[in-house]
């Protein structure tokens, strides 16, 4: 394809990362993730796809510092992450995390207000972020008055104002319909380009990963491991219209080829689980 232009400095690095949960009651411990080895380059857009329950969200939380790995190391900008969220990392969660008791404006300003930045700067950043996310006309509305997609945009705005250098998105468009997802995908790309941040997106939708990312990591069924990392080679100035290109179909096809077996495994595992529970 054309100019990929992905910078090669390492922004975040995972080495030998695994995550094991202790079993409930008499059950054996659950090996949920890993071992994972991954280098995230500065400014790249990396997507993780895999079947349900494979550990994608765990992966994101370990990278963010919300969970400690059971083994292995995670470093961000050269410094190890030890169970605390580092400065410069922003996270948008799958569930709606907008605060129902605050207006859109106060939601976006929430993190900034606590970091001791001057009020004038707070206003500037909040205005910019809300305008960028298309929420300029809704600053005084409450989340309960907005649609699901708009509430997610509020959460993204709240993350943006902190000017994170690494943005982690955990299936942020899971609850939205297909057309809205494509449009939100364009938004995320716009966001990525204008902030210059490194973006990691978790999704179960192969086409979404293929369309948005510079690199796509295909994760196996539990315990999640990367079975392949595909370089898409898209230009930085891309949008949802690339779904028309032949390469898009090839990439999506290849992802499905690698993940079909894993999805069947995950499906079988969940069938066994429900059978055992009865």
């Amino acid at each position, binding site marked *: 394809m054309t100019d990929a232009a992905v910078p090669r400095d390492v922004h975040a690095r995972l080495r030998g990362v695994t995550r094991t949960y202790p079993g409930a009651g008499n059950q054996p411990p659950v090996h949920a993730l890993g071992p994972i080895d991954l280098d995230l380059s500065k400014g790249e857009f990396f997507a993780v796809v895999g079947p349900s329950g494979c550990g994608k969200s765990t992966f994101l939380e370990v990278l963010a510092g919300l969970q400690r790995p059971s083994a292995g190391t995670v470093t961000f900008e050269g410094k190890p992450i030890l169970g605390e969220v580092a400065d410069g990392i922003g996270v948008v969660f799958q*569930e709606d995390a907008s*605060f129902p008791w605050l207006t859109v404006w106060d939601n976006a300003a929430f993190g900034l207000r606590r970091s001791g930045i001057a009020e004038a700067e707070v206003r500037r950043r909040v205005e910019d972020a809300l305008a960028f996310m298309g929420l300029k006309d809704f600053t005084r509305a409450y989340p*309960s008055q907005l649609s699901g997609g708009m509430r997610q945009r509020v959460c993204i705005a709240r993350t943006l104002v902190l000017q994170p250098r690494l943005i982690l998105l955990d299936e942020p468009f899971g609850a939205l319909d297909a057309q809205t997802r494509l449009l939100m995908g364009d938004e995320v790309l716009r966001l990525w380009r204008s902030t210059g941040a490194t973006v990691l997106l978790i999704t179960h939708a192969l086409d979404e990963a293929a369309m948005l990312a510079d690199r796509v990591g295909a994760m196996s069924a539990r315990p999640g491991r990367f079975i392949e990392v595909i370089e898409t080679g898209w230009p930085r100035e891309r949008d949802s219209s690339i779904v028309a290109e032949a390469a898009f179909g090839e990439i999506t096809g290849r992802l499905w080829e690698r993940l079909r077996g894993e999805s069947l495994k995950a499906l079988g595992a969940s069938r066994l689980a429900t059978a055992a529970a009865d």
Partner: protein
Amino acid sequence: MRHVGLIRIAVIAALIGALEFACQSSLISRRTIVPPSEMATTLYKILVSGAINADIARTLGVIVVVIVFSIVLGFALGVLIHALPRVREALDPLFATYYAVPVFIFYPVLIAIFGLSIFPIVVIGVATAVVAMIIATLNGLDRVPRVLTKVARVHRLGRVATALTLQLPAAAPYLFTGVKLSVSYGFIAVIAAEFILSPAGLGRDIADAYADFNNRRMYALILFLLIVATIVNAALHAFDMRWAARRSGGRL
């Protein structure tokens, strides 16, 4: 559906009107029920004369003390128990049964222990109301969506900041339900205690009026209490509706 409100007012007015008619035309004797209009005028005279001001102050004062105490104590205990899961599990059967037993019948025992004074009334009032607040607090803290605590960590908030700026507002609707119940239960328990046995208070006044066959006075005082209780409950309900609309919007 605003005309539903109008229909409701019409229905209530019709019932009161029917009662008035039945009493005035002696279908119902004055020894049983006094016409509503006379209830109102008698109440007005009593209030204007200032004769029951002391009792109003006493009864409402006790109720306020009971409510405030129950809310504060109930919230504090709720927070404490929520932080100790094992204690909470052990107390669970107690909470489940608490409102299944007629706690109020403990009132005479309290009188036997503490004597006939204001103290047993306060105790039975708090005993009735506090557990509702504890349960509501536990519920509210449970219902803070887990994603909010994760957001707190992403924003690197300390424990106190997380509690004050995230957990408290998120739990607030449920805490308010506890407040509503505490107000309601406190009111009911205090009035019942005054009624059954008390040195003074509006409940005692009504019981005395009944014993003296003073129907006019009795109905006037009953009307007064019903109006006060209805206003307070309605105000809380309206407040709750405003909050609820802003908060839930289909996310519960």
